[in-house]
């Protein structure tokens, strides 16, 4: 999956890919302060393309510990559990479900938004592909707003950027590909070689998406994210990140 991180103060977007294995669960947000854990499990495409197996999010889990509620969104349906009860909703439904402080809005075949105590919101988009496509599979996209009110303890592949890092980009110049500029980025004490490119935001236009121009970090976000991407692999869908 690809990640786009919007940095409001720096007025720029930074992006990177995480290339891991199907089945791996990546922690996206882990906030032991508010009790929120958001994890994404990877699925692979049906076949390799150019000797590479692309991975996507096939399942996104949003677990809100204070209410004991877990919302597991997969490409086949939406499951709401609270330890004792288990309710399943299909993507074919437009539904609104409220349980204690958690509100789940499902828009038929489009998206699910989970809002916790009106302060934290996570939106998951469904991307359907042609069932008989030789390579592609249905997958999910996750969108987390910058104004979510996490605790200072928040971390995770996305969560860590709620504290916006200082980013400086310089040495902007022509790259190997004449259409893509290259530059040097200084972030978190690292000096990184970055490439100007674009990735898609599908919130407005789910079919074609809108291009978001961003500075691309190579090697699975190495240097931009804290540690190595493998540090964010967790054992279960409801797991918090242990640091």
């Amino acid at each position, binding site marked *: 999956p690809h990640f786009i991180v919007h940095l409001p103060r720096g007025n720029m977007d930074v992006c990177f890919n995480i290339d891991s294995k199907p089945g791996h669960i990546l922690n996206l947000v882990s906030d032991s302060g508010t009790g929120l854990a958001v994890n994404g499990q990877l699925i692979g495409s049906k076949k390799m393309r150019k000797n590479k197996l692309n991975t996507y999010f096939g399942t996104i889990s949003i677990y809100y510990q204070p209410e004991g509620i877990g919302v597991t969104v997969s490409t086949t349906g939406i499951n709401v559990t609270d330890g004792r009860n*288990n309710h399943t909703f*299909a*993507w074919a439904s*437009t*539904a609104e479900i*409220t349980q204690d402080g958690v509100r789940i809005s499902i828009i038929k075949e489009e998206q699910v938004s989970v809002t916790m105590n009106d302060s934290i919101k996570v939106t998951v988009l469904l991307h359907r592909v042609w069932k008989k496509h030789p390579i592609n599979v249905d997958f999910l996209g996750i969108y987390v707003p910058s104004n979510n009110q996490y605790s200072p303890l928040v971390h995770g592949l996305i969560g860590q950027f709620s504290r916006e890092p200082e980013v400086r980009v310089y040495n902007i110049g022509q790259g190997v590909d004449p259409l893509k500029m290259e530059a040097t980025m200084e972030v978190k004490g690292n000096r990184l070689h970055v490439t100007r490119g674009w990735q898609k935001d599908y919130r407005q236009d789910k079919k074609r998406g809108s291009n978001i121009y961003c500075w691309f970090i190579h090697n699975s976000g190495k240097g931009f994210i804290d540690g190595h991407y493998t540090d964010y692999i967790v054992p279960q869908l409801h797991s918090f990140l242990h640091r």
Partner: protein
Amino acid sequence: AVLTSEEQEDFEAIRGDDITVKSYKVESRITSRFVHTTVKSSVVNSGSKAQSIGFNVQIPKRAFITNFTMNVNGIVFVGSVKEKTVARNLYAQARARGKSAGIVRANSLDMETFKTEVHIPPGSNIEFELHYQEMMSRKLGMYEHTLHLQPGRLVPHFQVDIYIFEPNGISMIQTPHTLGKQFIDIIKVTQTKHKAHISLKPTLQQQRKCENCTETIIDGVFAVQYDVERESNTGELQVSDGHFVHFFAPSNLSPLRKNIVFVIDVSGSMWGVKMKQTVEAMQAILDDLTIDDYFSIIDFNHNVRCWSEELVPGSSIQVKDAKKYIQNIRPNGGTNINEALMRAVQMLVRASNQGLIDPRSVSMIILVSDGDPTVGEIKLSTIQKNVKRAMREEFSLFSLGIGFDVDYDFLERIATENRGIAQRIYANHNAADQLQSFYRRVSSPLLRRIAIQFPDDSVSEVTQNRFDKYFSGSELVVAGKVLPSESNTLTSLITASAARLDITLQTDVDTTELDAELAKQEHSFTGFARQMWAYMTVKQLLSERSLAPSAVKKRKITQQIMSIALEHQFVTPLTTLLVESQDATERLLADSPKDPKHGCCSGGLGLGGGSSAPGPTPVHVVYHPPPWVQMTTPAPPSQAEKGPEEWTLPKRVTIVDND
């Protein structure tokens, strides 16, 4: 249809009989759970004398007859539904002229027998055709369509066709072996995603009871069970012919917790098999309780006893103790229903006041009784009032009436008035299974306070759209008229509460799609939504009518029922089917029969059949002595002029009336 040479031989052999049934064909067209059934029979008087030829069909009590036609030697009699008084006047006129005949409609418990007889000269041909419509309700995760097949004799052309069209797809279909195992290979089921065709077309040889028998083995219930695909929990919203039907049967939801008080009649009349089977059922029912459920047991005869004065959790220890208690009950004495129900309500009220009851749980009283009250308050209307007054909005009453000595109407009234349902249990047909099956239907409440709503300017004349509970495996159905609009979309919004969850579900449908699809289907029932709306509305109004608080209100409801029944051609308790010859000179009447008076059934007249069917076989009750019925056609000669080839006049004409 042309007979094969072998069949022709058989047919010739049958012709030796006095009456030959040339063909017997039953066709059901099911579209979105609504069924239109046609029963056609072609009969010849192959004897040398004039004789009566009968046409008997058993139809489910919930069905409405929509038409009956006869063709006697080319003279066609066509049916039309009329207001009862209008039909009676027309019939009286015909009767005064000696040109009338009767149709008997006898009532049993679940079934009703439509029966007519026509007296015709030798060599005459007569064709009968009966139409009825019904809506199937989903129970324990499936719909069941049953046909009672009783041709009475071997029939050269015997055929049953059931065509199912379900717009959302058929998820499973099966034909249980209710008619007999010998039909397993003869019943053909053809199925595609949306359609199914079930056919039964036995040859004469296959119909014989034994190789050389001349009696038919076909005598029983032919059943088809199926369920439909449900893509989502929002249900199916279908629009056709200016009417909509919304089916709502969500699954994959956790059941709500239950608080149950079992109220069991242990009066003397329960002695024997009834008590044995009740105990057997209760053992299984109690095993089904979970630690999240609360329960207690009240047993009553002239006295009322509680196994536990308070509701207790369904733990294994409590369940074991309750089972032991039930096992030791020895029925005797009278029946004090009022006191028992009051104690049950008080128990729930107390638990509620003590905060023992989770506000999202379901509280229910399950009453099992086999007889009328004999001790304490015995006036049924007073008991009904007492129960209604004592019950709280969040409690429901479910009634099970065992056997025939119980006033089932009363049990049904108190159940429906208190947000529950009633069921009759046939004591002689494995009552334990029936009790357990009923319990299974109500043991998994998934949702409470369900409202199915539509934007005000999009629909009108909507049937009941608020429901207290939804049970797993059942279905809630709402129908109405779609108002003209520029938009081709109809939206419904369902709100409900589940265990800890509040849910709002939205469904949108293109209002033109289904009609376009139905037009392509050869065997679909194109007017299903319109008829289904009328069927549901009439059923609802009939039930409101029985509870109407004033004469004015009752009259208003009566007018509404009549207007819909006439427009949609339903024979209801307030309308009559008048069957007239084309020149309107000869008439028959078919009214809807009265319910049998309870306790009347021991001397009931069996109308045959049903013995091979599993489950309860209804006892057929004719509440009037079967009338001596004749039909005259053409114009009757006087008795003095009558020759052997001529038609007999009715000596007495009886019509069955019930209002």
